[in-house]
């Protein structure tokens, strides 16, 4: 099937198999490997991207579902060489160790802060329910989210 997807502001047109997963489209067709596959079953959130501004797990979404949409991946978050406030906060607060869940975490937190610019720690923890990190114990991810909220003026 022919699809057209805007990824990080750039248009991609491709003929894909109907069964192709969005994450494979992003990684293999668009060549954006920052989005990771952690579980294949929609549990871990490593593959989270923003589709028209809303988080989706790209390992359980077909590429054809993304036809006509606008996707933001981790590669598209920094603008003009300047890190997004959430990226900066993850760095400052040691919100990552091995880095594998990080793209999904950062995008999840980014969307969370758009919906709730001034969350409590508990609200951040609730918001991270769908993302698994095996390294950090989540604590510094929560700190990073709160710091980013402050930096964004929430």
């Amino acid at each position: 099937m022919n699809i057209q997807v805007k990824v990080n502001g750039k248009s991609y047109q491709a003929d894909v198999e109907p069964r192709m997963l969005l994450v494979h489209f992003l990684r293999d067709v668009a060549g954006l490997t920052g989005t990771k596959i952690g579980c294949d079953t929609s549990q871990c959130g490593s593959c989270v991207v923003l589709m028209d501004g809303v988080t989706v797990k790209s390992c359980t979404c077909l590429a054809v579902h993304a036809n006509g949409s606008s996707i933001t991946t981790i590669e598209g978050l920094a603008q003009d060489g300047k890190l997004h406030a959430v990226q900066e906060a993850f760095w400052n607060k040691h919100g990552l160790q091995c880095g594998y869940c990080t793209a999904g975490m950062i995008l999840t937190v980014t969307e969370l802060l758009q919906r709730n610019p001034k969350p409590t720690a508990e609200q951040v923890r609730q918001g991270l329910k769908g993302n698994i990190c095996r390294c950090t114990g989540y604590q510094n991810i929560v700190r990073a989210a709160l710091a980013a909220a402050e930096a964004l003026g929430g």
Partner: protein
Amino acid sequence: MTTRIFGSGIRRREDPRLITGKATYTDDIKLPGMVYAAILRSPHAHARIRSIDTSAAAAAPGVLAVYTGADVEGVLKPIPCAWVVPNSDVKQVAYPAIAKDVVRYVGDAVAVVVAEDRYQAEDALELISVDYEVLPAVINPEAALGPNAPQLHADAPKNQAFHWVASGGNVDDAFKSAEVVVKDTIVQQKLIPNAMEPRSAVASWLAPMGELTIWNSTQNPHIVRFITCLVTGVPEHKIRIIAPEVGGGFGSKIAVYPWEMIVAFCAMKLGLPVKWTETRTENYVATTHGRDHIERVELAATRSGKITGLRATVYAGMGAYLSTAGPGIPTILHGLMYSGPYAIPNIRADVYGVFTNSTPVEAYRGAGRPEATFLLERMIDLLAVQLNLDPVEVRRRNLIPKFDNGYDVAIGLKYDSGDYQKALDTALTHTSYNRLRQEQQQLRQHGKYMGIGVVCYCEICGLGPSQVAGAVGFGGGLWESAIVRFYATGKVNVFVGTSPHGQGEETTFAQIIADELGVPVDDVEVVHGDTDLTPMGWGTYGSRTTVVGGAAVALSARKIREKGRLLAAHLLEAAEADVEYADGKFFVRGSPDKSKTIQDIALMANVAWNMPQGMEPGLEATTFYDPPNFTFPFGTHIAVVIVDPDNGHIDLTKYVAVDDCGRQINPMVVEGQIHGGVVQGVGQALWEGAVYDQNGQLLTGSMLDYALPRAHLLPDVETLSTTTPSPHNPLGVKGIGETGTIASTPAVYNAVIDALRHLGVTGLEMPLTPEKVWRAIHQQG
């Protein structure tokens, strides 16, 4: 002197690539002409292969080749076990890369398909027809040793993989004369490590040169090179192993697996680069598991609570084959730690390694020491109940008093340094322990079940002296190496043999260099994870990277400082004895303005226009550091839980970790290690466990079924530290990567049991699910 970089919580230097999606993990690699492998895995825990028909798969679209056990037989040697513990009759059963006649666990490889893309390879797997004769399976390690158990290997009677005994003092006498004995059976459930990055390998074969390159998600590329050489027959100097970005390991990326050998085989047969990446479901059956002990334990004590003896018989599941380091974990890393932080004069560990029809067992964060700590801390709580003493009081009466330089425990180890009482007191003060106990009483009167769990631990890490490694059957050394190289511009590369994968040593090693040589930390780049670029090293596990690898970095830096001092003396026309170093400068004593910076020295050494007689050009040093002893970090952790009697729900409300890892290079990184470690250990206590049915099917076969810790289930961990430097380490550091996991499982477990103590509940099997807790409360076991 200004603020020292050593000890400063600077943000990590590896993070910019990780937070922007620019890091390269193995599955991100795409080579020209690359094709994809998918592995057909046994759906049965134990079966004889009658026949395999691969013809339909071979004819499927895009398929380049299908290989079975018959194809690799004689080409790939069996996968070796690399930790053959002596005096324990280890049965080194053959572990073929692809099973040919018998499959012994769900996940055993049966065939491999190589196709032009991954979808085609996965599709073709379904076209392979295998005729199995299903055999009975056994999963429980104690049952596997029993008389009527199905037998896995003809050359391992009774499924016994080994039998290892260690003892100190006279245990039988201690029990004969004991005033009090407490007994328990402890089940350390099998755990699935769940590194977030599934395992992956890309192999490339340069036939004209006979060179094999494997990108591999591993914790120890040099060990992979060594074993790849043994299995494939490609000489070691023609093999290059690259561990690119590695997404966590926790022990599950120590083993050298059949899978990357299969990928190498395919690449060599086809002359094309081949990639294999496991799915998570595949990871659950094909990547190693941890723990899996059944332990029968007895503790002897006086009526005043002084421990006089400890003995345990342990049935340790090894899975279907011996993984790379499998046998060393329930023995050397477990039995030898039965004294913990306590003075216990008589100890015996009696460990049976047992083959079962399940995924092989390897190191999993803590590897043997969490099990040892759990065993001790569980038994001490039982003793406290028996004697009607506060569990803290029993611990206090048995802790080894403070020591700075060496303490011999009965079972044969020499601990380096410890101040266990101080860590305990720090934790008690911080939590207002006595007030917590009062609160517990008050809540109980209102029908609320609060529990407090206290754990004192001491663990062995910083592995370790190579002579000891040899004596305990480890198939290699445990030293580390570091090359520190200054360029003419004053910038520095550090090449290390260790292979960090999230622990932050690109930062902490740079901090060591900055501290030792006065260069800005941003002028240092640490190179690791490539056997062609880095000197030999044994990898990252056993909390050894900073302790052993970091020491090698520091010693190389000190060699450079001395060469720099001699060169500076020459350039300053001063006597060598009169030139000193401080803060990145070499100066003539008494004339601080007569000086050369380390950058001046780096430039001169590299251009070599004016060198002292006989001094070689270059400013570079190499150190192979073999530690004289292990390090023994320690601490006290306290967990507080509230159990809801209506539904058995456990709320972990407070967690305090007091840890002592000696001097801290980067406290932010240390704290991160503790956070993550603690949460992993909490996972074992409350949620995690690999559950099999009687046929050996893994019921917890995906993240849907295997309950991992999630953010909303956890409180913040309150971290505190004491500082007792290791006397033998050049940096005074001890390992910190595993302490959280070691302490937190028993802390949380003890807290839950403590909450139920007034109901007469003395123990439950982990994980402590609400159902088990509810049944215990309502006596509906």
